[in-house]
């Protein structure tokens, strides 16, 4: 198909695709899936950390956490807007989330059990997210790439804050340090799973690479994450829960142990500790807010009618 060839040529030449440009249907659908999933992850991702806002142990930490969760809502907002440029409405995306048709990052189906989990999420989960997202700042679709630039800047900040939070715990009482270690134990493997299945099993990958909406493979990004994180854990004095982890001088990378992909697929399938609750919480917020949204629409209608009448 000539149009597809021209489209691919533009991408190969590094020209950004913009909403008004022609694009293959599969490109559009793939992007909608990817961007909305990312947006949903920001929205659902508010919940595990939000769980500790009311219990944050200092006012400064409470302010940092509030601001962070607010940033996540903001990211959700840009990303929904980016997806809307592809011809899907926000309400449709929200419906798809609530019905289970659309996914969000499985990591948010794990519970936050202590305050240290807030730090671990910043350090590891935001860390993995940035690793995934930095390349996307250069992706072929303009609105997505611009949203990613903005998101990445803030995520890097969140990651530093999470690390700093853990630093305080690791320099604190033995109970606090234990809390940090326990959080690392529980979040380490799920964070590595965030990059998705091993390259060998990964669907969609080849075409997405060609379209420049995926620039590195899952395993490449995962390796980067491990390499970046190991020295950070050492600096904290924490032990990564992987007996097989060791520096491989030949590869110039850390080798790491086998990931339990059965757990991963199981959580994706809906069997994670919090899948049901996360969606139930969001759905309840949405349903409880229906009268509010309807009222704002009704009021706006009244105002525009009375303006029309005044003009007539």
């Amino acid at each position, binding site marked *: 198909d000539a149009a597809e060839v021209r489209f691919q040529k533009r991408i190969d030449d590094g020209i950004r695709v913009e909403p008004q440009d022609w694009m293959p249907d599969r490109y559009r659908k793939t992007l909608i899936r990817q961007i909305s999933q990312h947006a949903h992850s920001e*929205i659902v991702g*508010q*919940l595990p950390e*939000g769980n500790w*806002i*009311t*219990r*944050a*142990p*200092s*006012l*400064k*930490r*409470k*302010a940092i956490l*509030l*601001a962070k*969760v*607010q940033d996540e*809502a*903001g990211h*959700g*907002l840009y990303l*929904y807007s980016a997806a809307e440029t592809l011809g899907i409405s926000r309400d449709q995306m929200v419906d798809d989330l609530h019905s289970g048709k659309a996914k969000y990052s499985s990591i948010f189906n794990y519970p936050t059990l202590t*305050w240290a989990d807030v730090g671990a999420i910043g350090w590891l989960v935001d860390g993995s997210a940035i690793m995934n997202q930095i390349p996307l700042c250069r992706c072929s679709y303009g609105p997505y790439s611009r949203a990613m630039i903005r998101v990445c800047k803030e995520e890097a900040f969140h990651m530093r804050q999470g690390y700093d*939070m853990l630093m*305080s*715990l690791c*320099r*604190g*009482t033995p*109970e*606090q340090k234990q809390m940090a270690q326990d959080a690392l134990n529980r979040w380490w493997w799920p964070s590595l799973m965030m990059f998705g299945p091993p390259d060998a099993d990964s669907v969609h990958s080849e075409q997405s690479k060609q379209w420049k909406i995926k620039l590195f493979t899952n395993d490449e990004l995962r390796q980067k994450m491990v390499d970046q994180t190991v020295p950070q854990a050492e600096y904290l004095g924490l032990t990564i829960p992987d007996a097989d982890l060791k520096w491989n001088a030949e590869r110039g990378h850390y080798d790491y142990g086998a990931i339990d992909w059965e757990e991963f697929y199981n959580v994706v399938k809906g069997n994670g500790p919090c899948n049901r609750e996360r969606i139930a*919480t969001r759905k*309840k*917020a*949405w349903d*409880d*807010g*229906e*009268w*509010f*949204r*309807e*009222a*704002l629409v*009704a*009021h*706006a209608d*009244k105002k525009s009618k009375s303006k029309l009448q005044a003009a007539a």
Partner: protein
Amino acid sequence: MSNKNDTYAYLLRLGDNALVLSQRLGEWCGKGPALEEDMALTNVALDLLGQARLWLSYAAELAGDGADEDSLAYLRDADQFRNVLLLEQPNGNYADTVVRQFFFDAWHALALQQLRVSQDPRIAEIADKALKEVNYHLRRSSDLVVRLGDGTEISRNRMQAAVDHLWPYSGEMFDADGVDLAAAAAGYGFDPSGLRTEWLAYVREVLEEGTLKLPSPEAWMQKGGKQGRHTEHLSRMLSEMQILQRSHPGATW
């Protein structure tokens, strides 16, 4: 020293008002009725939290016994809190949250205008910074009162129910006691009873625009929060808020 004690008591009220309302707003995080609304609400929570930290830090300095903003927030029991009862009331449905905010914002803006010319330069400075934020809070909550009042029948009913239910908690903001009068006399604070007429006029106007009825200004008003006699809600809120500090005495976070 007696003067310092009065100022300390006065600052606690300002700080606790901001802290307690911020804590309530934080409970909504991720669960609001619309994404944009969630973000705006968190903004307000953040502003109030920032103000609470300034007031409580100043109070802690005056106390001078090693206290700091965190020891004041996390290690006082409910009867040592000095916020008005209105602000500790549960979030309820979103209409309750909006009306609680509106009643307070309307008072808060007037109060900060007074405090901005406080003879205590530190108070004046904090109030000046806070007022800029609170002017935005008040615009936002007034706007929501109008839109939700004059929205659908359901929204009008919910808003009117919230107004009626929270009304008896509005009077305490204007109830002057010794701490207020000492502050007014010494020139670092003001007599809150002087704000009531203006507050009523403003609230009436906004409610009317939202097709809502102002309850009787002569209605019986609940009070006690400013003197440390709270409702049953505050101690529950604090048990959640303080649990980590209480469980790990002396730890740094």
